[in-house]
């Protein structure tokens, strides 16, 4: 089995799909339970205009949970994958911008309460958050790659 075959093997793909869905559902639950705290987290990023902070705090967790559910249930997989990929890119860019301007923040990714970290601890956590998001982005890439390969093979079966 080649590396490419291993990377697109259905055994791996289904597990990545379930894991990514579960991660996004787990990330959404605390935000849905306590929207004001999540709005505070978004505010701390200092990237969203004031009038939009609450709207995004309300919308984003539900987008996360629906995309996660779609992946787990195997419904609208491509749309869910695209939505999750977009959100991950936004998260990474948002954290990078704040790292660049020295605004140390709590990610608010899986926990919406203040973590009580020092400035340096927050900066370090932000790098780890980016790494984690890149990992999830790689999972999205694996799903897309596996589907593309499957589609190609179904159209043109090997001779």
């Amino acid at each position, binding site marked *: 089995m080649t590396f490419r075959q291993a990377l697109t093997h259905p055994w791996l793909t289904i597990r990545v799909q379930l894991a990514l869905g579960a991660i996004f559902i787990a990330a959404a639950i605390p935000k849905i339970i306590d929207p004001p705290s999540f709005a505070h987290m978004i505010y701390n990023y200092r990237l969203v205009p004031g009038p939009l902070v*609450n709207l995004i705090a309300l919308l984003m967790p539900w987008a996360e949970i629906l995309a996660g559910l779609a992946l787990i249930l195997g419904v609208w997989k491509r749309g869910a994958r695209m939505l999750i990929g977009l959100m991950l890119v936004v998260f990474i860019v948002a954290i990078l911008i704040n790292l660049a301007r020295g605004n140390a923040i709590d990610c608010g990714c899986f926990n919406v309460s203040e973590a009580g970290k020092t400035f340096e601890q927050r900066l370090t956590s932000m790098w780890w958050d980016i790494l984690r998001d890149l990992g999830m982005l790689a999972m999205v890439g694996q799903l897309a790659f596996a589907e593309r390969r499957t589609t190609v093979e179904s159209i043109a079966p090997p001779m």
Partner: protein
Amino acid sequence: MTLRHPILQTSALLMGAAICALVANATAPQQRQLRLVGSYPNALRIPARASSPALPAPSSASESAAAVTQTSIVSQAPGIPPATDSSSPAATPAVKITPLVHEPASDKIAKPTLTTSHPPSSTNGISRPVAPAANPAPPVKASGSASADVSRFSPHPEKAYVEIGGADVAALHSAGALFLDARRTSVFEQGHVAGARSISVWESDLEEKVRRLFDERSDARDQAKPVVIYCSGGDCEDSHMLAEKLWGIQFNNVYVYKDGFPDWQKRGGAVRTGTAP
């Protein structure tokens, strides 16, 4: 489900999310509701302290308070003499001097629904260093006695708020000044300054509570009475946000307790739990 194009699927998921969000918000308890359109005038402004060394993590209330006093300063409104705080000797060197007053960015402060008549301006305050944490903080007297002299806390209409330290806060508490707790209601219920009222800037009833306060103090003389706002100290900005909101409705004698509730607890101030002040 016949939506085949991923963009259509993504749009459908987003629409579903929007519907779920609206329904969930409408049916949520008030403490967990959000106004759909937020009012956060400083949402795009990086806090000045963001690039400065952070305060140590408040793993406990006392630790937090001690950490804050090492690097913070207390500001006073012009005309306020130094507080007679034995824990703040003038000879104590300041560890770090930072801007005293969060000068309200007049063009950025949201004018609340109620009208404002304050001409925006910026004024520097007078500073003095806070005593190192090693010095024991004096116990805070119980509130209710009007014996404390608070005449030095004069109105300062030119700025939204003045940051003050524990000694000044204790004096104002003893004099029966109005205390507002800007933290979340759930945190307020776990413990707050005795007599304080809960007005969380992150909850949907903010405007209603502010309006009620304005109705209670619609007279100019009432609005000139000292009001102390606090949150959790450290990086917490909720008290500053609420102070700017009150300034916008003509409250011109608002003080922000810089070190917040952890410092109050450390000083042994009167604390209550539950929803009642």
